[in-house]
Each structure stands twice: as structure tokens, then as C-alpha cells.
């Protein structure tokens, strides 16, 4: 299997605190990997470092042949190849508030890739349709429900056709039915040959839809394996994650 994302020995400090203490992980094409851990375990930070939103102190990140190394974040022009390789869906969706759903999706293909506007909108419509929000194309972000906004955000990232898709807590704003259909969407995307790295603390979702789980605890990879390891946890961090689910349904917003 070709590794699409390879992270080695990633260390990252913020405000004097070491958030990531040397994590290594990889995601091959065609796989849904769940990056799991409680709040503060460093999941989001690892995703942000992968798309060069955050500088890191040591280690190496390689996305489909494009390598990031420790030190300040490179300029946007030098990051252009990375932008074509990795898409990111933020927990808060981060849609452009002043644009409609279809405009959100078509903006980057038009402005960054220089695609003709009509073609971009056409492709954008197809994407929105395939994600079940085609009927909301002309709605503004404030008019969308949490689930709809998330689908538009996924469509926006996919419009750039990145082989690697990162998602931060995608189930946080979804009801159970929506979580199921999101999971099916992700499986479909992996069947297209994309690699997906999903930061989540939703153990049910990971058990149902992930091909592999990576447990983060206090800045290190505590445990890694097939989703079945969630059924028989060996590491205390994994048990803590499962306990958390029992005490509180993970419906973070």
C-alpha cells in the first residue's frame, strides 16, 4: 500500500507546553484512519500541522511526496503543491459567510486553479448533489443546518480534488442518522482511492466506519490498530476514551 501521509517524530510546542511529543503515523490511499483521543490530546494540532497551519519543532510530515520540515511555516507560494494534495474540513466548517453554498464550493477552483466559472459551478453542483445538499446550493451558510454546512464544507474541500482529506471532529454537530450517512460518504471517498484522516473522539463512529484507529494521549500515539481494538482496549488511554463515551454522549459543538 502506498503511504499517502507519513508523519514521523512530530514534536510541537505551543506557549511553552509541548502538545505533540514525537508522534508518528501514516495513512495509505483508500483508507479511513481515525485519529482518536480526548480533548487536548493533540488531534487537532496534528491535523493543523499537516496542512501547514502550524509550525512544528521537530520531525517530518510528507503528503504524497511533498515534505514539510521543522521550522517556520513556508510561504503560501511554496505550499502550493501541498494545497493540491491535502484538503481540510474544519470542525466549525469555516464556510465563507458572505457566499452561497455553491459559491463556497466553486471559489477555489475558479480563483486558484483558474477553471472556467461555468465548469466549476457545474462540478460544484454535482459535488453538492452527491453529498445530498444539492437543493441548498443557493443558501448562505447562516441558513444551513450543522449537517448541511458540514457537507458543503466537504464539497468545498473535494472541489480541489485532493488525494488526502483531513476532517476535524466531523460528527460533533450531527445527530445519529446524519452520522451514519456521513460515515457512508467517507467510505465512498476512500473507495475512490483517497486517504482520510479523521480526528474524532467518537468511538462508535470510528468502530463503524474507520479502517484503522490511532489513539493519541498526552501528545504521543498510545495505541494503533484495527477498529476492533476499541472493543478490547489494552491501553489506559483507550479505556479512558471509551469511559468518556459511556458517561457522556459525544455531542460536542
Amino acid at each position, binding site marked *: 500500500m502506498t503511504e499517502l501521509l507519513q508523519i514521523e517524530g512530530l514534536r510541537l510546542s505551543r506557549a511553552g507546553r509541548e502538545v505533540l511529543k514525537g508522534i508518528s503515523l501514516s495513512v495509505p490511499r483508500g483508507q479511513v484512519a481515525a485519529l482518536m483521543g480526548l480533548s487536548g490530546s493533540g488531534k487537532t494540532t496534528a491535523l493543523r500541522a499537516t496542512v501547514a497551519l502550524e509550525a512544528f519543532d521537530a520531525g517530518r510530515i510528507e503528503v504524497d511526496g511533498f515534505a514539510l520540515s521543522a521550522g517556520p511555516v513556508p510561504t*503560501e507560494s511554496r505550499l502550493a503543491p501541498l*494545497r493540491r494534495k491535502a484538503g481540510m474540513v474544519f470542525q466549525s466548517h*469555516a464556510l465563507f459567510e*458572505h457566499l452561497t453554498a455553491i459559491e463556497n464550493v466553486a471559489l477555489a477552483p475558479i480563483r*486558484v486553479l483558474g477553471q472556467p466559472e461555468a465548469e466549476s459551478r457545474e462540478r460544484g453542483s454535482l459535488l453538492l448533489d452527491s453529498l445530498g445538499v444539492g437543493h441548498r446550493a443557493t443558501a448562505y451558510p447562516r441558513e444551513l443546518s450543522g449537517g448541511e454546512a458540514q457537507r458543503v464544507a466537504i464539497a468545498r474541500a473535494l472541489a*480541489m480534488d485532493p488525494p488526502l482529506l483531513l476532517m476535524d471532529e466531523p460528527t460533533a454537530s450531527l445527530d445519529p442518522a446524519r452520522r451514519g450517512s456521513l460515515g457512508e460518504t467517507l467510505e465512498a471517498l476512500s473507495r475512490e482511492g483517497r486517504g482520510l484522516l479523521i480526528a474524532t473522539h467518537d468511538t462508535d463512529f470510528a468502530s463503524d466506519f474507520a479502517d484503522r484507529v490511532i489513539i493519541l494521549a498526552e501528545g504521543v500515539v498510545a495505541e494503533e490498530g484495527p477498529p476492533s481494538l476499541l472493543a478490547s482496549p489494552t491501553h489506559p488511554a483507550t479505556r479512558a476514551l471509551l469511559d468518556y463515551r459511556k458517561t457522556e454522549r459525544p455531542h460536542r459543538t
Partner: protein
Amino acid sequence: MSRRPAGSRLLLGLMFGAAACAAAQTGPAPALRWGGDAEGGAPFVEADPADPSKVRGFDVEVAETIARGLGREPRFVQVAFSSIDASVARGDFDIGLSGVEDTPARRAMLAATMPYFEFREVLAVRQADAGNYRGLSDLLGRRVGTLGGTIAYDILLAGRERHGYLPVSYDDDVHPYSDLAAGRLDAVLLDHIIAARSLKRVPGLVVEPDPVATGHYIGVLAKENTRLRDRVNEVLAAAMRDGTLERIYRRWDIWDASQAAFFQASLSTLSRNPADAGSLAVSSSRWASAIRYVPSLLRAALITLLLSCAAMALAVLLGIGIAAGRIYGPGAARALLTGYVELVRGTPVLLQLFVLYYGLSSVVRLPAFAAALLGLGLNYAAYESEIYRGALEAVSRVQLEAARTLGFSEWLILRLVRGPQAFRLALAPMTNDFVALLKDSSLVSVITVVELTKQTSIFATNIGSWVLPGILCAAIYLAMSLPLSRLARRLERRWSATA
């Protein structure tokens, strides 16, 4: 009849206010309160260098002569020159005397004494131009300055069409002469006393020998105070006859042959016809003059609007630049721009206008309108930049990060994501600022731009009442600002719903 540039006015007011209080406590005799502007300076009324709590000048001695003739103690009341009429009408003092010009409007509104001094309106020019501008008809295409709200200004306005020069009105009688020397003006038309005084102060100027017109100084009393006025006239006539006034004028070096002829003439007229201008024509003439002034008010409103729009456009462009520089620029540029914003916001716009127009005139001689536009534009740019900076900062960071992960450059993010959203947030406060600018633009009258407020004050001085001009002026300002305020509110509602 003259005013010095703003500045020492407050100090003078305090000084003489205190002096007046002291006098009120000690003086048992019924005092004659007379109002004048000590900022007018010598030889009219000025603070005595030997004892700044006292005033001196020929007007002071005329007032003392009148008080003596009435058997009363003179007491000076400091009042701004342009407020003498209104102050005496509302009873702040008994008589106003400070180079007050004899005009039909004044006679209609107040009880005027007989004229006690005849002045000539003369043209001052640069030495190099001596002999070239002997009269108004020689000034085609030239800029001629004077003090606003005076007979000289009325003369300039009346002859503008015929002679084709540009009248420039000032708030004081010092800057016209310094601007003349600096080349901003080609001539100054004012009373010969003021011209003579200014020639001593500003080198390189001469006065053309032929007067453009003559006028008179009078004392003014409240309309109903005709009994006191008549007694003052008796005192003045006696002082003319017995040489008291001549001695005063000689002492202040303002006596000449024409003054003697004027005394003769006025004493003989007085014996024949002591009456005022009839009050019958008053109300109709005031309305008539109000209508006459409407076109000039509308023209001035256009200046206000043009100036405000142009200054706002400049402020918006610069403001965007400053805000972008403070967010995206390198450290040094950020510090510099922050310094600029703090400096501009921390000092009065009036001071900035003065510095730009007068202070820098030796370096760059800006035309008045350009200085006004630049002054207001630079000032408002600081405020606009803060609005834009706040608006840019208000666009959620995660949207900018999302845009980065999609491959947008910083410039594209600003143009496509951050800018448009910030613009919506900024639109309502910007509109509010524009309304404020519309009103602040009245400040530029200090650098000789005649805009709506200035035109109104000229109008009010000329017809001797603020009521009608004030109402008209307010109506025009409201007509300009109310639609904008409404627009601001609508935008605010609309965008607060979308954002």
C-alpha cells in the same frame, strides 16, 4: 472691527471676566457696560501691555468719553467681534464699540449711534505689484482677501461678477496680509487702519493710494434703548465739536484731513436729521435678503458636499492602506502607521488644518480647498483605518485558515474572503463617519474655504439675525445627513442579519 486668529481668545475672556467681576464688587457708581473685542488689537481695543487686565485703544477712549459725558463709570465687557450685535441685543452690555461698521442691516436691527469715525476701504498689495491693482477693476482673475462679515467683504462680493476676481474670506484680519505676502492672495481689501497696522507687521506690502470705498464706525445699542442712544449721540457730537475725539485720534495716530471733513459733515447732518433708518422696511427687507441668500447657501452646501465626498474618498483609500499596513505590514511599518493614527486622533483637526495651511506654507503652498480636502482626508483616514482594522480583525480566523488550505494567496484571501466581509461590517460605521465629516467640514472655514456654515454666518452677520439663516442652514445639513443616517441604519440591519 477686527479679529485676531483663534488662540488667545479664551485667555482674554477669562482675564476680562475676572476684571469685570472685580469691578462689579468695588464700583458703586452706575457703570456703563461697553462691549468690545480685545482681540481686535491696537488701535481699536487691545490688552494694555503694562496691565493686561486693562484695555487701551481709541475705542476704549471713545467709550470713556461717552461714559464721562453720561456721568457713569465705563466698564469693559469682552465679547467676540462677531457676537457684538447679538450680545448687545440680548442685554449683555449697554453699548458695543469695537470698530463696529455702519451697515443698513445693523441699523435695522439695533439702535445705532451717530458715526464717530470714517474709514477708507483700501487695497493692500505686494510691493512688486504697486500701481498694478489700483482698484477692483484691475483685479481680473486675481484673489482678493478680506475679513468675512464686513463691508469690505460685501463690496468684494458685489463686484465679483463685474470685475472677475475671486473674493477670499478670512476669520481674522492677520492672515489675509500674511497670505498676501506669501503669494496666496494678490490683494487685501480692508479698513485703512488695519492695513496701516498690518504693513508694519508684514514686510513687503504697500497700500494703493485710492480708497475703494468709505465707511463709518458706530456704537450699537439694543433696539429699544433709543433714549440712551440719543444721549450717547449728544455726547459724541459734543466730543466732535470740542476736539475731544480729535485729540484721541491724534493720540492713536489715526487723525487726518478726511476725518476733519467727516466731522464737519456729520455735525451738520446731525442737526438736520437725527433719525435712524425707518423700522418699517425692516421685516420685509430681512425676508428679501434671506431669499437673496438662498442661492449662495445652496452653492456653499455644494462646496460642503463636494469637500466631504472628496475627503471621505481620500480617507477611505488611505484608511484601507493604513489598516492593511497595520495588519499585514512589517513591524516598522506597523509602528509608523500606529504612530500616525494616534497622532491624528490625539490632536484637534483644527490644529491640523492650521498647520497644513499656514504652518507649512513656507514649504508647500497649498490652495485652500486642497488643504481642506487633504486636512479632513488625512484626519478621517486615521478614524476609518481603525474601523477597517476592527472589521478585518472581526472576520473569523478559521475562515482565513480554510481559505489558506484551499490554496488562496494572502492577497486573494484579503480580496475574496476577508475584504468583502469586513466591508459589510465597516459600512454602517463608515456612513456614520461620513455624516460626522459632513459637519466637521465646517471647520475648514478657518482656512478661508466658504462652506455652508461659513456662508450662513456671513448671511447672519449681514442681515443681523441668526434665526432665519440658522434654520435654513440646519435644514440643508439635515437634508444631506438624514438620508445617510437612514442608509447607515438600513445597512446595519441588513448586514447584521447576513453576518
